[in-house]
């Protein structure tokens, strides 16, 4: 158990999913191999995929919790770099769930979304027919009917 993980990452509301700290430590190590830091993007652990973002993921997808716990239990003696290959062979469902948990946690992090410039799922007022080029459209009409009379 890492006390730092408890104080920094796990503190939160009472309804937090029950994932042991050892499992979070394991996840942090595996996740950083899946999504390491780049020049512009943080590593998975820095984006909180084993901490708050894990809680975000599991609150929205409680069904993933037991796949995570199973993945951890199956590979508890495996070196982190071998974990994904081993899971793919032993338990593809747990393997896929782990990918989803790591990517799901990472890409729901607002800082990551900001760095990517992703502003989807936010309301934008629709400009009525303002981006349709009438000249292009009239050339489609000039080319004549496309359908068969029947």
């Amino acid at each position, binding site marked *: 158990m890492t006390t730092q993980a408890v104080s920094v990452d796990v503190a939160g509301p009472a309804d937090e999913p029950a994932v042991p700290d050892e499992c979070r430590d394991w996840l942090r190590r595996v996740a950083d191999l899946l999504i390491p830091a780049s020049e512009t993007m943080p590593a998975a652990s820095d984006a909180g995929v084993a901490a708050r973002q894990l809680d975000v993921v599991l609150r929205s997808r409680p069904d993933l919790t037991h796949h995570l716990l199973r993945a951890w239990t199956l590979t508890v003696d495996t070196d982190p770099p071998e974990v994904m290959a081993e899971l793919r062979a032993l338990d593809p469902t747990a393997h896929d769930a782990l990918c989803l948990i790591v990517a799901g946690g990472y890409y729901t992090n607002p800082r990551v979304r900001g760095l990517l410039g992703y502003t*989807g799922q936010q309301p934008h007022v*629709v400009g009525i027919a303002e981006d349709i080029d009438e000249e292009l459209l009239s050339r489609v009409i000039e080319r004549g009917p496309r359908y068969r009379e029947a």
Partner: protein
Amino acid sequence: MEQAEVLIIGAGASGGVAATALADAGFDVLCLEQGTWPDRAEFPAQRVTYELEARKQWSGSPNVRRNAGDYPIDDGDSDIVPLMYAGVGGSMTLYAADWPRLLPSDFRVRSLDGVADDWPLRYADLRPYYERTDVAFGVSGAGGDPAYPDGAEPPLPPLPIGQTGLRMARAHDRLGWHWWPAAQAVLSAPYAGRRPCVQYGACMQGCPEGAKASTDLTHWPAAIGKGARLITEARVARILVSRQGLATGAEFVRPDGSWDIARADVVILAANAVGTPRILLNSASPLHPQGLANSSGLVGRRLMVHPFANVMGYFDDDMASWNGHVGAKITCYEFYETDPDRDFVRGAKWSLAPTGGPLNAALPTRAGEDAWGPEHHEHVRRHLGRTISWGIFGEDLPDESNAVELDSSLTDSSGIPAPKITYKVGANSRRLLDFHIARATESLREAGAYDIATESLMRYSGWHLLGTARMGADPATSVVDEFGRSHDVPNLYVMDGSVFVTSGGVNPTSTIVALALRSAEHLVANRRQQRIPA
């Protein structure tokens, strides 16, 4: 016990349209729907976890989603997974609202191309109904599309085509190929008390604005205002039939698990092309051992689902291609009609849709390969916002071995036998898709794509469920007549996507609802001749 003049089973697209027309005409209408009313506040569009929820509780597959209202489907023997939603509004709750019509040739494939069968009606017969349902649902689009015969313009102007639409429009302009702003059942402006689209880009997990048309918004409130009764969480097991061969009502399960009866003079099935044959086959009795309305043996047969391919181009610049309504920005009908120089008949419509958010970009479902480790960020950068994809809806020719049957052991939670689907993509469809993939690749290259990824058959693409109780004039080769009336049981109607004779190569819902309106109004007009139980 419940009682009504008309019992409708299913409150989805066709059920909502039929209920409104009948309630308007003064009929006492009762509808039994296995799902609940949608709660727009629950739709995930505005939550950061939207892409995670889309893969489970908001999946189009009842087997993945497993809501209380869903029944399971054995799809192990199907190339394509059937997708649908149970609730008021039906599968329209999750649909993408791409709203094209069938073309004139789609109704005449036997006469024109020597395959499958002609419909017992033509495009011109349906056109007035298309125009009325466009108004009722609030369709946005641009009039004058040369892919279609002349007719009334959609009631609302087109939605934005976005950077991706414009780029592909210019490419098709250079190629001399057809393109057109896509007709969508999504509001581009306020309409009938509903708010317009604000481009969340999450239409396939429910539209929180109510900008996307579905019958829970566009039809059921009016139908209920006219006296129609809608009972939700009511799961129909089977239709009951008298010795005289008339439908007398249905047996159903209430949410507390108790069984009940709804009696009616006329029964309308609107449970979609999987749910309807399931009910008819579950209604087998000593008088109808093969299932109800099944003297032709075609109930459940000829399932068509539109095999779907996706061709995606990679571009250098960020076009925010995750943005906007999900149905289609623009469409292309350049290769829709049969060309004798090709090694297949019929064709496909292309739809240009957004390519998804960051989770979609990161996971192998879109990429086709894993990209973890040091390459991960470059992989996401390539995909997110910098891709354009053509979705190709190929015409699916009917084949009696593609079928909905009853599973020998699987049941829903009430013990009612569940459906099993057998579906294989035919040889004509495969050649058709391969040709279209090659043309879509040319299109994207012309637009400047530096790389192309192809999904030559998407398994989770069974959005369009059609053909399992086909219409026709001959009772030996069809289940219902051109107005959805069963040849065998004169007070039993089918008004959902099951009645399609052939599939066409376009999204079907505008045609499903136009047919439902035509059938319901025919029932109203002929009410005095309608045989009913004593």
